[in-house]
Structure formats: structure tokens, C-alpha cells
């Protein structure tokens, strides 16, 4: 974990615990609420303290944003270094690997209507692929999904050279095949 993010998380946990203790005290004793109000009002009325509070709040806002971005991105791969040679390095982006998974799923002719793919890092430099698929109703799900899993694993390893730890296929929905009769 990034050292800055770790520090921010520790700071946040501490600030939250102080805030929760103050909330409990204020809820139990109403006179504390009035005292807190006067203390805060006194701070804001003083010009120098006002700027300190604005700067401190600005830092807090930036910290919150960075933690939010980190939380959203954590677990998602960015790129995988396949090899380095005397000319330079070769990286394969996570989008490229996800595109391989999607193209394999579409070309496998296993009754997949639409699909979404995600790739995550696994142990020992391997990757884990997840496919969330919407299937047609006339598909033998266990047999066909086993076929898709196998094909995705082989295709990723063949086309990117990156070893695959496992392939998870989730069937999110099954859609009926309806025929439209025009009048």
C-alpha cells in the first residue's frame, strides 16, 4: 500500500474516532453542544484561525478525494510488464487483456449475447479473469461455460504470454430467444 495513502487512512481513522467520541458526548450532554458551538464560533471569528481552518479543511478535502480514488482503483490492474529487451520494455495494458477475454467469449459460439470482462492480479505474477455474461436461453450453461473458461485461459496465455491463475464466469442473466412476427 502506498505510504501516503496509509498515513491518510491512519489520520482518517483517528479523526473519525475523535469525531465519534465528541458526537456521543454532545448527544448525552446538551450543554457540551453549546460549549462546542462557542469554541468553534470563537475560532472562526478570529481572522488568523479562519484561514487555518480553511487550509486544514482544504487538505482534508484533498485527502478524501485521494482515498476515494484509491478505493475505486484498488484491486484493478493497470499494466503488466511482459518482457524487457535491449531496445526497451513491452507492457500490455489491462484493457488489452480484457479485450482478449471479450473477443474470445464472442467468438467461442457458446450462446453469449453480451459480456463484460475484468482482469485482476493474482499470485506469482499471474492474473485472474472475470467474465460476466448474458446468455441465450437455449444454452447448456455448465458445458458451455467450461468451454469458454478453457478458451479464455488458452487465448490469454497464447496471445499475451501472461499466465492465468483462474477464469471466473458469472452468468448474470438468461434471455429468451424471441422471434418477431411482422404483420
Amino acid at each position, binding site marked *: 500500500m502506498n505510504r501516503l495513502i496509509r498515513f491518510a487512512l491512519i489520520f482518517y481513522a483517528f479523526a473519525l474516532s475523535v469525531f465519534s467520541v465528541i458526537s456521543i458526548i454532545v448527544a448525552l450532554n446538551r450543554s457540551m453542544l453549546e460549549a462546542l458551538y462557542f469554541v468553534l464560533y470563537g475560532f472562526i471569528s478570529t481572522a488568523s484561525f479562519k484561514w487555518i481552518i480553511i487550509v486544514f479543511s482544504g487538505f482534508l478535502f484533498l485527502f478524501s478525494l485521494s482515498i476515494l480514488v484509491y478505493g475505486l482503483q484498488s484491486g484493478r490492474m493497470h*499494466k503488466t510488464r*511482459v*518482457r524487457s*529487451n535491449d*531496445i*526497451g*520494455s*513491452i*507492457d*500490455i*495494458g489491462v*484493457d*488489452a487483456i480484457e*479485450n*482478449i477475454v471479450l*473477443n474470445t467469449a*464472442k*467468438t467461442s459460439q457458446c450462446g453469449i449475447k453480451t459480456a463484460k470482462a475484468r482482469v485482476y492480479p493474482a499470485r506469482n505474477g499471474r492474473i485472474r479473469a472475470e467474465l460476466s455474461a448474458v446468455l441465450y436461453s437455449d444454452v447448456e450453461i455448465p458445458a458451455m461455460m467450461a468451454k469458454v473458461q478453457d478458451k479464455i485461459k488458452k487465448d490469454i496465455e*497464447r*496471445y*499475451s*504470454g501472461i499466465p492465468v491463475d483462474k477464469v471466473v464466469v458469472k452468468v448474470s442473466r438468461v434471455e429468451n430467444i424471441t422471434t418477431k412476427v411482422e404483420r
Partner: protein
Amino acid sequence: MPDPLNPTKGDRSMTQGFVAQYAVEAALGTPGVYDLDTTPLVSLKETLVGEHEGKGVLVYFNDAKENLVNITVFPILYYGNVLPEIAWNIQERVKNDVEKYTGLMVESVNVHVKGVVAREDPAKQK
């Protein structure tokens, strides 16, 4: 007495965009390459200003040593190819073309594969 190898005195300079144009042509000419990926910033610049020289390629000159250049290419490749092989071909082609046409020494060519697309017509597959 004038130097026979460099008879005219003066400086010669090349912009990053100029070098990037050769790198783009070399990368796009490599079999298996569909296009080069551009950042949103470059797309915005193209919309506002017009053409951006060498989109999908980053060129850095080495500050310490003259005539040394580092290039990073962001290709989108066709599905069905072995990506490291295509990337290696891009590296070789970009290095050779840039050195041949600009006279600069290429220190490194890094390739970051940004995406994979399926061919529209299977008959066009090589």
C-alpha cells in the same frame, strides 16, 4: 578552415513532434497494428487547435546526452496476434526508421499495448 563533415556552421534542432511523426508512421506500418491510442488531452487539442503531430507516441530527448531519444508507443493491435511479437516488431521498426530518417540515436523504444480489436472482415486477416 571549415570542417569537411560539417561545412556550414550553425545549430540543427528537431522537435519532438517531428521525431514522433516518423515513429507513428513506422508503428502504423507494422503488420497487426490497428491504430495508436491517444490520450483525452491530445483529442481535446486536436478538436481545439487541429492536427497533433505524432499522436499515440511520446518522445523524450535525453538531457544528459545529445542526439539520444526515448520513444514510447501506445498501439491498439488486432485480435488473434501474439501481442509481444507484434510489440517487438514495432520496437525494431520504430528504432530503425527514426535512426535512419532523423540521424538521432534511439536509446529505448517502449511499447504499451493499450487495446485489442477484432478484425471486421476475417478475409483480411494475414
